[in-house]
């Protein structure tokens, strides 16, 4: 894992001091809310439905056990004993007092964490593959690239007042586990003539106008990367729309002028920017990359695994993935128990996961965009011990990528932007499909729920997507099928008229029954949908 040097620490400490001063000026009346709002947002502090909410950055979803313990400590000391892991691989505290925030940020800084640029019209926390560094299918660890971008984008003087927020994702595997092409800029590290470089996609996103990012540049060598991104951002900063906040994301700019025109403008800008010498030397990348070296794994670890315990075997089959090293595995801890709230974890659960990471996973944890937690480097011989401890903490639900492993935004229970509640719908669906045999029979089925068109719950990218809307003061839910955030990326289509809370659960059941009747060997729900189209599903739902 990356470790701060004195420069990184000084930057974060300076930010804490700056924000402490800003909070003081706000409380003393030197600043109006209008002036304070963009500043608190750039420190991840929102005013939500019930209280201030603090969003803590977990850069590219990686954290140590010490950092996870600190999140638990903050939840206990300043909040109400829990936190919410988000689709941006971050953590949100829901009940924060304004005058506690400097102290919380100080606590975070003591373990090399912060809330910098987790909101605001700036470059947000860089997201990445939760299996980075462990995945059997990656060509390299994408996190050194992501850390390079984290530093470049932190307090960027030119790009802190962009037309709108800006999200960057970096992956390096064949399988896209991070919804890379649904980001403002998506980067896939690829190899060309034995050298790694970045394939740059731009203009993807969800929200009210979902778009899949087109390829802008096939291969940007490492030594040009920051110049190239600087050019991408400068074109956006200068020409992105500022007249209408709903049309201000880069996806609208690229859609309106076309990918070719955007690419040409970026190239022109790049020619100017490249001459400025803003790209760090290879030695800086190597310095960062050294922190991400594979931990000292047990070279003699055995691949043997005793699967005679039925429940353990179910969990291994569903929640454990292939590691690049022999004798090891990647464990995903589901934060989707049937009665639970997707993505929520108590302080005690955070502490337990931190302890497991220290004991069994070389001190590393990851957060996934599907709101789960990963132990990336576990010896197969330790899996049973890990599982037993997870069972005791209610963290061993064997439902990864099944219908009850839902993404759900906080919705109208917490969020001031939401139009409808997401969590109760998620809970009703989970209840309906609680039977594990039934879930397993349905196979991989990614169900994603957003409580408003901002789409934090990624509903456009769900095999089944649900969007909550406000229909004359009543919560109403629109259903859509056929979305994907993976390498087979696609945007979901709306089935037809919306439903009330119970109605949408019934409709999903009719659709999954239809899938079971129509599917061919090995087809997932989305494969059948793609083959037979919407009409048969519509018929099944609306009859």
């Amino acid at each position, binding site marked *: 894992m990356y470790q701060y040097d004195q420069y990184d620490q000084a930057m974060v400490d300076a930010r804490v001091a700056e924000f402490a001063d800003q909070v003081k000026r706000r409380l003393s009346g030197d600043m109006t809310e209008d002036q304070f709002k963009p500043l608190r947002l750039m420190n991840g502090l929102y*005013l939500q*439905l*019930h*209280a201030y909410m603090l969003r803590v950055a977990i850069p590219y979803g990686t954290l140590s056990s010490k950092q996870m313990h600190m999140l638990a400590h903050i939840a206990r000391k300043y909040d109400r004993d829990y936190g919410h892991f988000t689709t941006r691989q971050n953590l949100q505290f829901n009940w924060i*007092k304004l005058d506690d925030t400097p102290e919380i940020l100080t606590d975070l800084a003591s373990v090399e964490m912060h809330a910098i640029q987790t909101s605001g019209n700036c470059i947000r926390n860089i997201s990445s593959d939760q299996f980075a560094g462990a995945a059997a299918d990656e060509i390299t660890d994408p996190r050194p690239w992501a850390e390079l971008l984290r530093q470049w984008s932190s307090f960027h003087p030119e790009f802190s007042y962009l037309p709108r927020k800006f999200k960057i994702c970096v992956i390096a595997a064949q399988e896209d586990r991070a919804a890379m092409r649904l980001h403002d800029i998506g980067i896939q590290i690829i190899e060309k003539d034995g050298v790694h470089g970045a394939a740059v996609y731009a203009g993807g996103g969800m929200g009210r106008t979902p778009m899949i990012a087109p390829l802008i540049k096939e291969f940007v060598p490492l030594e040009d990367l920051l110049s190239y991104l600087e050019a991408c951002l400068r074109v956006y900063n200068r020409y992105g729309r500022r007249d209408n906040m709903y049309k201000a994301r880069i996806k609208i700019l690229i859609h309106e002028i076309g990918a070719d025109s955007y690419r040409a403008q970026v190239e022109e800008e790049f020619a100017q920017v490249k001459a400025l010498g803003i790209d760090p030397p290879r030695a800086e990348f190597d310095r960062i990359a050294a922190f991400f070296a594979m931990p000292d794994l047990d070279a003699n670890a055995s691949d043997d695994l005793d699967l005679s315990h039925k429940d353990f075997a179910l969990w291994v089959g569903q929640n454990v993935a292939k590691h690049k090293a022999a004798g090891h595995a990647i464990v995903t801890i589901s934060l989707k128990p049937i009665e639970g709230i997707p993505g929520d974890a108590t302080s005690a659960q955070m502490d337990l996961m931190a302890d497991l990471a220290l004991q069994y996973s070389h001190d590393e944890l990851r957060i996934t965009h599907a709101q789960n937690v990963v132990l990336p480097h576990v010896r197969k011989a330790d899996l049973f011990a890990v599982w037993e401890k997870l069972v005791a903490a209610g963290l061993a639900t064997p439902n990864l990528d099944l219908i009850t492993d839902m993404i759900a935004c906080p919705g*109208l229970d917490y969020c001031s932007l939401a139009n409808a*509640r997401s969590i*109760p719908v998620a809970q009703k669906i989970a209840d309906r499909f609680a039977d594990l045999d039934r879930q397993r029979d349905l196979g991989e089925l990614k169900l994603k729920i957003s409580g408003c068109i901002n789409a934090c719950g990624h509903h456009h990218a769900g095999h089944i997507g649900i969007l909550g809307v406000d229909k004359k*003061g009543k919560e109403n839910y629109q259903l859509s099928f056929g979305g994907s955030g993976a390498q087979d990326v696609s945007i979901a289509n709306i089935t037809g008229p919306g439903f009330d809370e119970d109605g949408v659960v019934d409709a999903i059941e009719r659709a999954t029954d239809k899938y079971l009747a129509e599917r061919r060997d090995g087809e997932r729900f989305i494969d059948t949908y793609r083959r037979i189209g919407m009409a048969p599903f519509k018929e099944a739902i609306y009859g």
Partner: protein
Amino acid sequence: MKLLTGNDLNTGLVTWWTGKDWSIHIEDAVDVGEDGETIAAAEELARRINGPYVIGGELTAEGPRPAHIKDRIRALGPTVRVDLTLKPNDPSAAERVI
């Protein structure tokens, strides 16, 4: 009736105008008539409230009830965590705000 609400500047908690002060309990809220905007401006200037706004509602046997679901959830707390609401011992409170 018209209610004036906002969030406490420091705690961020949802509060309701009681006629002379702010309360986290909607039962204490009063009808502000046409004075909502004026009170809001003065209270914001005095740094006692963040983002105050006036909403419509009706007076019921249980007290004032906001017209919109969002404000009814604000008045109670998260419906999926009754233990964290202002009525932790009333499991049906969540259903009544929907």
